[in-house]
C-alpha cells in the first residue's frame, strides 16, 4: 500500500531496526549552541532559560521512552521505580551518550530524591557559563529529557541539573537531581506488584 513508485521497498517495508545512529559531536554542539541562544533570546532571566531548555528536553524524553522501550526492551515497560531509574541510568544514557552514567544514588537527606551524576556530558563539554549567569547548567536540557522519560513511565518528578565541584578535578561534575512527587504512592504501588 505504501510502496514507493521508484524503489522496490518503501520506508514502511523496511524493518524497524536499532542500528547505530550517531551524529558528529561538532554538528550537535553547534545545533545545541543555537538552541541555547534561541531560548536565551526569548527569556528575561536565568531560571526561565533553564525552564525553556527543560521544556525542549521534555518532548525528547517522552519520545525516547517510547522508542527505547520498543527497540531495546522488546516492548517491555518498567513499572517499578528502581527498574525505571536503572533504565534511565543505563539504557537511556547509553543511547544519548554512548555509555552508562557514572553514578546513580539515593539522596542522604530525603528519600524521595535520587541523583544521577556524570562528567563531561556533551551539552556541557564546550560551554563556559559566564560568571553573571551563576548557577546555570546547560544540562537542564538533559534534565528535561529525564523528566520526560520518567513522566511518560508514570513517575512524575521535578528534575534539575547542577554543577558540583569535585576535589582534585579541574572540571565540576553534573548532577541530575530527581525529586519524585507522591513518593509514598509510588512505593505502595511498587509493593503491590
Amino acid at each position, binding site marked *: 500500500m505504501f510502496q514507493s513508485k521508484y524503489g522496490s521497498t518503501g520506508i514502511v517495508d523496511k524493518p524497524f531496526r536499532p542500528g547505530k545512529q550517531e551524529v558528529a559531536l*561538532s554538528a550537535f*554542539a*553547534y545545533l*545545541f*549552541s*543555537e*538552541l*541555547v*541562544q534561541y531560548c*536565551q533570546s526569548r527569556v528575561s532571566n536565568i531560571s526561565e532559560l533553564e525552564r525553556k531548555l527543560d521544556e525542549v528536553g521534555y518532548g525528547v524524553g517522552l519520545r525516547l521512552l517510547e522508542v527505547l522501550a520498543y527497540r531495546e526492551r522488546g516492548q517491555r515497560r518498567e513499572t517499578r521505580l528502581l527498574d525505571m531509574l536503572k533504565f534511565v541510568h543505563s539504557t537511556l544514557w547509553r543511547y544519548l551518550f554512548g555509555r552508562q552514567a557514572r553514578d546513580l544514588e539515593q539522596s542522604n537527606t530525603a528519600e524521595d530524591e535520587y541523583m544521577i551524576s556524570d562528567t563531561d556530558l556533551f551539552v556541557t563539554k*564546550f*560551554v*563556559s*557559563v*559566564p560568571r553573571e*549567569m551563576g548557577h546555570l547548567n*546547560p544540562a537542564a536540557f538533559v534534565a528535561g529529557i529525564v523528566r520526560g522519560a520518567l513522566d511518560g513511565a508514570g513517575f512524575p518528578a521535578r528534575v534539575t541539573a547542577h554543577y558540583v565541584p569535585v576535589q582534585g578535578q*579541574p572540571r565540576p561534575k553534573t548532577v541530575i537531581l530527581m525529586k519524585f512527587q507522591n513518593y509514598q504512592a509510588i512505593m505502595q504501588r511498587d509493593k503491590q506488584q
Partner: protein
Amino acid sequence: MPGIYSLWIVGRNGGLLYSRDFVQLPPIEFNDKLRLASSWFGMCGISAQLSPMPDSSGIQLLQADTFDLHSFHTLTGTTFMLLAEPQTPDAAELLRTTVYELYCDYVLKNPFHEMDQVIKSELFDQNVVALLQATNRRWGVGLPPQ
C-alpha cells in the same frame, strides 16, 4: 631558544578579542594593545591588496631579529597572531591547526559567545594556556607567573 611569547586574536572589524602572554614580557598598556591589533589588521588588509594575484591571504609571517610574528587569517576573517622566538619550529602549524581548533571548539560552540565580542570563555583560556605552556616546557622555557 625556541619558545612562544604570546597569542592575540583580532576580530573581523579589527578589534582585539583575546590576548595572552606565555612568558614574562614587558607589559603593553591595554589601549596600546587595541591600537596595535587594529593597525596589524589594517596592514594585513593592505598587503592583500598589494598582491599581483587575486585572493591573497595577506601577511603570513613577519620576521624581526628578536621575534617572528605568525599571522593566520581564517576564511571568515578572524586573524590569529602568534609571537614566537625566531626559528621556532612548527609555530605556524601550531597556530593553524591546534589553536584554531581550540577556538572552534571552546569559543564558537559556546552559546554565550557573540561573534566579534571579547572572548570570555574560561575553557578556551584554560586550554590555550595548557597547550602553549606545554609546548614551551618541551623546549625548556620557564613558566610565567600567573
